[in-house]
C-alpha cells in the first residue's frame, strides 16, 4: 500500500480538470460512452482526493494532532465536500450540466489550497481542542454549502434568463428545473446559516475559554470577528426574510440571496487570511504577541507541496 503515499494533488486535480473538459464537450456533441468516462474519471479523482486527505490527516494526527491543520488542507477539504455534492447531483440529475458549474469551484479551491501552501498552519496547542475543532469543521462545511448555493443560484439566474428570452433549449444538455434550483438554494441557505452560526458561536466560546485560562484572545473588535458576525447576521436576515416574506422564496430573490452570501463569504475569507486568523497566536492580555509556529508538516509529508 506504499503506492498510496505517492498520490499527490496533481492526481485528483488533473482528474477533475479532465472531467470538466469532458463535461464541456457535452455542450457541443453527443457521445454515448462519455457518461461512463466522466464517472470513471471523477471517481478516480475522488478516490485519490480522499486517500490524500486521509493520509494527510493520519500523518498530522501522528505528529501535531491536527485534522487538516492548515488553510491549504482546509481548501482541499472544502473541495472534497463539493465533489461529494457533485456526485450526488450526477446521481439525482444526470442529464444536467451541473459539472460545468461545480467543477470550476472545486478546481479553484484546489488551486487556492496549493497556492496557500502548508506553511499557513494552525498552532497545534491552541487548535487541538474540541471547540476549535467544532469551529473549524462547521465553518468548513458551511463554506462548502455557501459555495454550492452560489452555484445553484447562478444556474437559476441563467436558466430564468434563458426562459424569459425564450431561447431554444439545448438538445444536448439541460439545466435542472427552476423549481429544483430554488428549493435547493433555499435549503442550502438554511444549512449554511446554521453551520456558520455554529462556527461563529463556537469561535466566541473558544475566545471566552482562552480568556479564562489565561491564553491569548482575539479582541472583540478584531476584523475577523466583526466580519464573521456581519456574515452571520446577513445570512440570518436572509433566512428570516426567506421564511417570513413569501415572495422572497420565489424566483430570483432566492438566487440573489445566495449569490450575495457568497460575496460576503469571499470578503470574509480575504479578511481571515489577511489578518492571519488561526495561524498566529493572538495577543495575551497585556503581553506581547507570540511568534507564529513553524510550518508543521512540510518536511514530514512526501507529497505535501507540489513541485514547480
Amino acid at each position, binding site marked *: 500500500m506504499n503506492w498510496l503515499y505517492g498520490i499527490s494533488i496533481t492526481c485528483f486535480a488533473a482528474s477533475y480538470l479532465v472531467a470538466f473538459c469532458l463535461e464541456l464537450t457535452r455542450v457541443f456533441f*453527443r457521445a454515448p460512452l462519455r457518461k461512463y468516462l466522466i464517472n470513471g474519471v471523477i471517481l478516480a479523482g475522488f478516490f485519490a482526493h480522499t486517500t490524500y486527505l486521509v493520509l494527510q490527516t493520519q500523518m498530522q494526527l501522528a505528529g501535531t494532532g491536527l485534522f487538516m491543520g492548515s488553510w491549504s488542507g482546509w481548501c482541499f477539504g472544502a473541495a472534497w465536500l463539493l465533489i461529494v455534492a457533485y456526485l450526488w447531483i450526477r446521481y439525482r440529475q444526470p442529464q444536467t450540466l451541473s459539472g460545468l458549474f461545480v467543477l470550476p469551484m472545486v478546481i479553484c479551491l484546489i488551486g487556492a489550497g496549493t497556492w496557500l501552501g502548508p506553511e499557513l498552519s494552525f498552532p497545534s496547542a491552541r487548535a487541538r481542542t474540541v471547540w476549535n475543532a467544532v469551529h473549524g469543521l462547521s465553518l468548513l462545511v458551511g463554506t462548502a454549502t455557501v459555495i454550492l448555493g452560489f452555484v445553484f443560484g447562478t444556474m437559476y439566474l441563467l*436558466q430564468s434568463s434563458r*426562459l*424569459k428570452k*425564450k431561447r*431554444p*433549449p439545448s*438538445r444536448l444538455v*439541460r*439545466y*435542472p*428545473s*427552476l*423549481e*429544483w434550483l430554488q*428549493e435547493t438554494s433555499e435549503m442550502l441557505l438554511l444549512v449554511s446559516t446554521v453551520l456558520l452560526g455554529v462556527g461563529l458561536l463556537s469561535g466566541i466560546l473558544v475566545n471566552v475559554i482562552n480568556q479564562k485560562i489565561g491564553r491569548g484572545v482575539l479582541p472583540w473588535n478584531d476584523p475577523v470577528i466583526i466580519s464573521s458576525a456581519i456574515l452571520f447576521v446577513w445570512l440570518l436576515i436572509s433566512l428570516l426574510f426567506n421564511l417570513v416574506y*413569501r*415572495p422572497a422564496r*420565489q*424566483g*430570483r*430573490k432566492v438566487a440573489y440571496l445566495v449569490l450575495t452570501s457568497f460575496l460576503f463569504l469571499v470578503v470574509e475569507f480575504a479578511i481571515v487570511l489577511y489578518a492571519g486568523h488561526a495561524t498566529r497566536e493572538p495577543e495575551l492580555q497585556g503581553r506581547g504577541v507570540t511568534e507564529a509556529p513553524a510550518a508543521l508538516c512540510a518536511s514530514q509529508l512526501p507529497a505535501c507541496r507540489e513541485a514547480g
Partner: protein
Amino acid sequence: MILKIIGCSHHQSSVEVRERLAFNPQQTFRFLRKFYDAYPQSEVVLLSTCNRTELYAAGQSHDLMPSTEEMELFLADSCGVQHSEINDFLFEHANEQAVRHLFAVAASLDSMVIGEAQILSQVKQAYRQAADLNQPMPLTHHVFQAAIRVAKRVASETEIHVNRVSIPSIAVGVFARQIFERLDNKQILVIGAGKMADETLKYIQGEGGRDFVVVNRTREAAVRLAEKFNGRVADWDALSDQVQNADLIVSTTGASQPVVSLQMYQQIERGRLQRPLFVLDLAMPRDFEPSIGECLNVYLYTIDDLQQECDRNRNARVGEWPKAQKILDQETERFMRELSLRSKGPTIQRLKQQAQQIKDIELDRLMKRLGEVNPQQQKEIEASFHRIINKLLHPPLESLKDEAETGTTGLLDALKKLFQLGD
C-alpha cells in the same frame, strides 16, 4: 414465399377515406377470422391506425393465397364500401417492396410525424392479434419480428426519435419541465375547452398533472373536458381569481381579443406572491397580452414560440433520415437473403432425400448380389456410396447458397426441373 400488402395511408388518402377503412380491435378480430375462412392457406395481419389501414398477406405460393385484387375486394367488402370508391386510394406492394414498406412503417419512417414512437407498439399489437388466432404463420412471424428488430435498431443507432415534434408535447415535456420539477402539486388552469386543450391536457396528465380547473364561456364544454380529466369547472367570471391561483395556464380560446389583459394581470399579480407562472398561450389570436410576459416570474409562450421548436426538431429528425434509410436498406437486403435461403431449404431437403433413397436402393441390391461380405468390407462399401453422394451434391448445393446471396431463383428452378423435385 410471397408477401403482399395492400392498404391506404395519409400519403394517398384523406382522413375521410381512412375513417371508412378503419378497424377497431373487435372488427379486426372478425376480419382476420373471416379472411382465414376464405383463404385457409394464407397468413394475414391487419394494421389499422388513425393514419393507415394495411393488410399484410403471405403464403408459400401465388396459388395458395388471394391476388391483390381479391385482397382489395375483401377489404372493401369488410368495410361496407364499394371497391370503386377506394380503389384510387389504395397502394400495393409485393415481396421486397412489401418487406421494405413494413420495416419503414415499424421504424416510424413512414409516419405522418417521422420518428413518432407509437407506431411500433401498434405494429406489435396488430401482429399479436393475428397470432392469437393460432393459425400457422411462419412467414409473417419472420417478417414482423424482423420489422421490430429494424425499428429498435433505427431507434438506437439514430436520433430520429429524439426530441418532440408536436406543440403540446413540446410545451409540456420540454418547457414546463424546465420550470417545474413536478406537476402533480401544481394547479393547472385551462382556458377554453377545444381539441388543443384536450390534447395538451393529455400530455400534462402524462407528466403527472392532477389538479385541473377548466374555464370556458360555454359551461357544458368545460364540464365535458373537466370530467374527462377528473378536473373542476370554474365560472368564466372567476377567471382572474383562477389566474391568481394557477401555476400553469393553458389558453386555447377562439376569442378575437385577449381574454387576459395586462391590467387584469397586474390587479392579481400581488396576490400571486411572485410564484412562477407558466402560460401556454396556444390560441390564435393570442389570449394573453404579450406584455404580461415581461412581468416578474411569468414565462409566457405562444404557439409561434413552440412552433419554432417543433420545426427545429422536425428538421433534426429529417437530418437523421439518411442514416435510418441506410439501416432500412441493409436490413431489407439481409432479410431477403435469409428468406431466399429459407425458401431453398425444402428443395435442398428433397434433393438430399432423393439421393439418399437412390443410394439405399442400390446399396441394398449390391449387398444381395455380393452375398457373404465381412463387416469391415460392408462398412467400406457404405462409406464409398456416402462419399459419392456427397461429392455429387456438394457443387450444386454450394451454387444454390451463392444464389441465395443474390436473391434470384434461376438455379433453384433449374434444379427442381432437372431432378423432378416438384414445387
